[in-house]
């Protein structure tokens, strides 16, 4: 261990900075959580106070549960997020493997073409996408969302994963070839386990925007049976009256599944780093 790390003052400063950052980052979440358990009056009178016996109220959660089919919305959001992430990781990793492993004409151009999506926001093409979905009859299906999010996530996934895959030693892949592995087996059994931290990074990057997105669910799948959680919560935000109890409760509940997914991926991330994979 070097001296800078073992110095107690440095350690204290470092931890101080990290704690401060954590507090700032968690503060809005904390405010949402405590206020979701308070009565409407108390939310506005003392927004920072903790709920006590007098102000405690579950009215927000009751409204959410009564109005609309929140379990279904949850399910929809979950299917869309997990489905999109699966496709992004699968196809992104495959494209990245091809780009990093094989020499072929136009490799460089193909890489640039795939990375182009990072620079051009997919929302520019919303009208065209909607026309396409209408033509294929995918409007108001979860598939419409999954396909669009997959397209949206692929460029960054290919970009990040191909960089990581270039670092996997050629000798290792060649050892696999001599040991009788097919190219698919090399990809699934050797390369993927080694780039797991990068996969987790890509998953985390893509998960939050997909979960929180309002734009595409509103345009492509606004039907009651395909509503996502973010879209479903919008019923409580009106032009003139907003049911803050319900909004805060819905948001509090929406945080949970993402939190679970994040914990899963970040564990992978840490395990990947600590396993000391490549020599």
């Amino acid at each position, binding site marked *: 261990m070097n001296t800078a790390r073992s110095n107690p003052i440095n350690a204290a400063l470092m931890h101080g900075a990290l704690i401060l950052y954590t507090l700032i980052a968690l503060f809005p979440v904390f405010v949402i959580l405590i206020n979701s358990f308070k009565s409407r009056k108390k939310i506005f009178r003392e927004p920072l106070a903790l709920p006590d016996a007098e102000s405690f109220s579950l009215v927000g959660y009751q409204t959410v549960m009564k109005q609309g089919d929140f379990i279904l919305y949850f399910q929809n959001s979950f299917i869309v997020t997990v489905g999109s992430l699966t496709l992004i990781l699968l196809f992104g990793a495959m494209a990245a493997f091809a780009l990093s492993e094989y020499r072929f004409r136009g490799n460089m151009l193909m890489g640039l073409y795939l990375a182009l999506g990072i620079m051009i926001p997919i929302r520019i093409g919303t009208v065209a996408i909607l026309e396409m979905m209408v033509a294929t009859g995918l409007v108001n299906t979860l598939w419409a969302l999954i396909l669009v999010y997959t397209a949206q996530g692929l460029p960054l996934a290919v970009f990040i994963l191909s960089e990581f895959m270039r670092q996997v030693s050629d*000798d290792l892949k*060649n050892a696999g*070839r001599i*040991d*009788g592995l097919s190219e698919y087996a090399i990809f699934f059994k050797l390369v993927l386990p080694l780039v797991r931290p990068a996969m987790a990074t890509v998953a985390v990057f893509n998960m939050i925007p997909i979960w929180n997105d309002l734009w595409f669910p509103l345009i492509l799948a606004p039907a009651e049976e395909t509503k996502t959680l973010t879209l479903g919560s919008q019923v409580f935000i009106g032009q003139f009256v907003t049911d803050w109890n319900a909004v805060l409760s819905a948001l509090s509940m929406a945080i949970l599944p993402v939190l679970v997914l994040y914990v899963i991926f970040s564990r992978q991330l840490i395990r990947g780093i600590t396993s000391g994979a*490549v*020599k």
Partner: protein
Amino acid sequence: MAQVTLDRVRKTYPNGHEAVHPCSVEIPDGELVVLVGPSGCGKSTLLRMIAGLEDITDGALSIGREVVNDRDPADRNIAMVFQNYALYPHMSVAKNMGYGLKNRGASKAEIDTKVQEAARILNLGDYLDRRPSQLSGGQRQRVAMGRAIVRDPELFLFDEPLSNLDAKLRNQMRIEIRALQQRLGVTSVYVTHDQVEAMTMADRIIVLNGGRVEQIGTPTEIYEHPASTFVAGFMGAPPMNLMQAHIADGVLTLGEETHLPFAAPAVATDSVLVGFRPEDVRLGGDGSMMLHVEIIEELGAHRLLHGKLGGQPFSLSIGKDEVAGLGAQPITLPRDRIHFFHPERGTRI
């Protein structure tokens, strides 16, 4: 077990770079052949072509009388040991060693027996459940060897397997690999840039330079009769002394009026390269040859004198009991140890 034949095997990259010029070699069954040369000489490319990891542009490669040019690496019945070991980091030692067998559909019992046997030979019995990251360099090297021998292949390929080890371990592993290869009697091709490894391990050495085969021979042949100045300079440490000598009326002159007491070879050119191994030269003499010693290197077992002979750099190796000082020293160049090379082409005369 198998013999390996390379018949005018050649490698040209799409950008036109000729990595390996047509190369014909026959490796008899059970021999260990070392490919040696400086970096970028094409030795690794040639090995990878034998392994099937690199396409062969032209020519025929046979392993055990069958042409295998178009076969996948997995179907050539070979095993390879890589420079950085290339162990599967997410598998235990036992799984690493058994993986090739598992992919070929061997039964669990058979894999277990073979892995245990290999672990016993390589003293890895206590480490079978560990991950590669928990092993030292030498142990990883052994696991890589184990992975090769459990497969019971026709041909071993080694790609600079010792270059990541420290000097002491390298000497030890060198002997272990050679002993193991002799015991198993498997034909082997071994790539290295280290001429000591080449000399000590090889049944035969192939010296490569710039994608061309410079010389093929036993270590003694290569050392005693180098085919070119390149081989003479590459094999042996310190390398052979090579001096430009002028020929006039059949007399060889080094410069500064130092005449060599030998008849000049019959050549059309008016100069020739004269070579002497540092250990072939003797200290002492009649004073007609004077070496101006500038530096003495103490190596324990012997001593190296570096200086100038007739104005050209010259090194001399003497035993630890011989006495020598700086300044002019008489030396004797034995007539039967002289080498002549063509001054431009560098080929042996």
